[in-house]
């Protein structure tokens, strides 16, 4: 297997892009990543996307974006794994370069959500849970997340207010990210007073649906410096699955796919949680950050919330998370979220994170969670 590095980064601002189509969003991220890599063409394009069929009436979007970008003829395929589509596409691009099947590959994550009404987006997001046995009962993606949060509070003795620091940290970090959707800090009072949307989840526990696209260009590490002065090495990449329905799990509060993919990534890299300088958690809901920190071994069971309460997740904390705003405040263009995480960790590894730079960051990790944990992708990046 060949060593693989990221040699180009691109992203659009996250938000409500009413004047920009799905294909244009994908193209813009691809265009800026190609420019960053000083490259004109790639051999293959992998597109992470969850909802183009349901929300835009368009499938076959990898060929569409390749065509729109003037790359007719190249290999191009869409990859779908619910909310983990972005990092799942990275996994495929990584495998292509590592396996020697291609030298220069683009991976785009793109989602267009704000053209549609809220109940349509809620129904679409709920396609990542079990359609016959969860969604049919009236459960939404958020409703399942809310039940996990309530059970967690019950088992570990927390109140809703104890989760505030996850949202406060995300918003504080988004203030320093020019591509973030919500760049205003929030207070504990604002968090505590927010009304529930799926009790105990309020709008400040939950990431906003958005439009956006992010892109990375991959190349073998041995030629990475031909494209970039600051290549970022993919030190490990791992995917694991669990039951799609949360109620089918032995213990719904243990994200087994998060644990397995983290263990595989750590084992492949010869690293452990203590070596990691920052972690992009999949904070679609505050509870998912807590469960992710615990499954990866950054905190014991029930200790994820305590890390946030003790201020250990901030940019100068023991394990900084959501360093550019996370899904919560950067925004959650769902199939692109995993690629935004990768672009942001790569910015940190390059030392290009501006006022959000984590000092001396050398190893960064991202965990992209599909559905409520049915697919989890863990990626570890390293500064070269």
């Amino acid at each position: 297997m060949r060593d693989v590095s990221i040699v180009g980064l691109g992203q659009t601002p996250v938000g409500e892009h009413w004047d920009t189509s799905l294909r244009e969003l994908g193209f813009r991220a691809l265009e800026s990543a190609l420019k960053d890599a000083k490259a004109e063409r790639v051999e293959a394009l992998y597109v992470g996307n969850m909802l183009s069929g349901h929300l835009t009436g368009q499938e076959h979007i990898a060929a569409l974006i390749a065509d729109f970008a003037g790359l007719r003829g190249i290999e191009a395929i869409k990859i779908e794994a619910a909310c983990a589509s972005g990092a799942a596409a990275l996994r495929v691009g990584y495998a292509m370069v590592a396996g020697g099947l291609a030298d220069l590959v683009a991976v785009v994550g793109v989602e267009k959500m704000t053209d549609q009404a809220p109940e349509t987006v809620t129904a679409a997001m709920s396609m990542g849970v079990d359609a016959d046995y969860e969604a049919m009962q009236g459960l939404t993606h958020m409703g399942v997340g809310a039940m996990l949060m309530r059970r967690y509070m019950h088992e570990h003795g927390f109140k809703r207010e104890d989760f505030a620091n996850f949202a406060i940290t995300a918003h504080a970090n988004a203030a320093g990210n020019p591509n973030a959707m919500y760049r205003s800090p929030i207070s504990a009072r604002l968090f505590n007073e927010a009304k529930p949307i799926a009790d105990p989840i309020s709008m400040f526990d939950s990431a906003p649906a958005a439009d956006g696209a992010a892109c990375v260009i991959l190349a073998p590490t041995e030629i990475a410096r031909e494209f970039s002065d600051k290549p970022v090495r993919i030190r490990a990449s791992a995917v694991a699955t669990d039951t799609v329905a949360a109620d089918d799990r032995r213990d719904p509060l243990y994200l087994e796919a998060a644990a397995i993919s983290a263990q595989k990534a750590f084992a492949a890299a010869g690293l452990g949680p203590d070596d990691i300088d920052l972690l992009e958690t999949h904070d679609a809901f505050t509870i998912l950050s807590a469960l992710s920190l615990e499954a990866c071994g950054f905190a014991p069971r029930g200790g994820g919330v305590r890390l946030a309460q003790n201020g250990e997740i901030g940019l100068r904390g023991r394990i900084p998370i959501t360093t550019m705003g996370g899904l919560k405040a950067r925004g959650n263009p769902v199939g692109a979220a995993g690629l935004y995480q990768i672009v942001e960790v790569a910015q940190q590894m390059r030392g290009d994170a501006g006022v959000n730079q984590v000092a001396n960051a050398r190893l960064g990790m991202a965990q992209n969670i599909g559905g409520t944990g049915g697919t989890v992708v863990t990626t570890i990046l390293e500064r070269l």
Partner: protein
Amino acid sequence: MEVARYWRTTRQRYQLVGEVCPNCSGKIFPPRDVCPTCEKEAKTPFAFSGVGEVYSYSTVYQAAAGYEKATPYTVAMIRLAEGPLVSAQLTDIDDKDVAIGMPVEMVTRVLREDGDRGMLVYGYKFRPVMV
């Protein structure tokens, strides 16, 4: 909901029929033909009693298309007496009175409406056990 899909899941939705594993005797819901515990074939039908207790719950204020009329409504994960967890709406109870550990039983109710002219989808919900 599509007519064929409605009929092929009727036994689950009307009668809470799952499976029992002939190898480890584990009770399985929904039916999946492979035992999630011992990974052996498990195709023997098993009707659950419909009795259980609330494992967790949430009142949903932002519903998906097809469920807006009932909003807000309370969903729950129920630990069935035979072992498995099942997700369903709670009914015949005020949202404020729900608690983890509360004994509940299965009843049949309308789950969703597919527009004014579409199908009424019936299935299981759970209500507090009548004393």
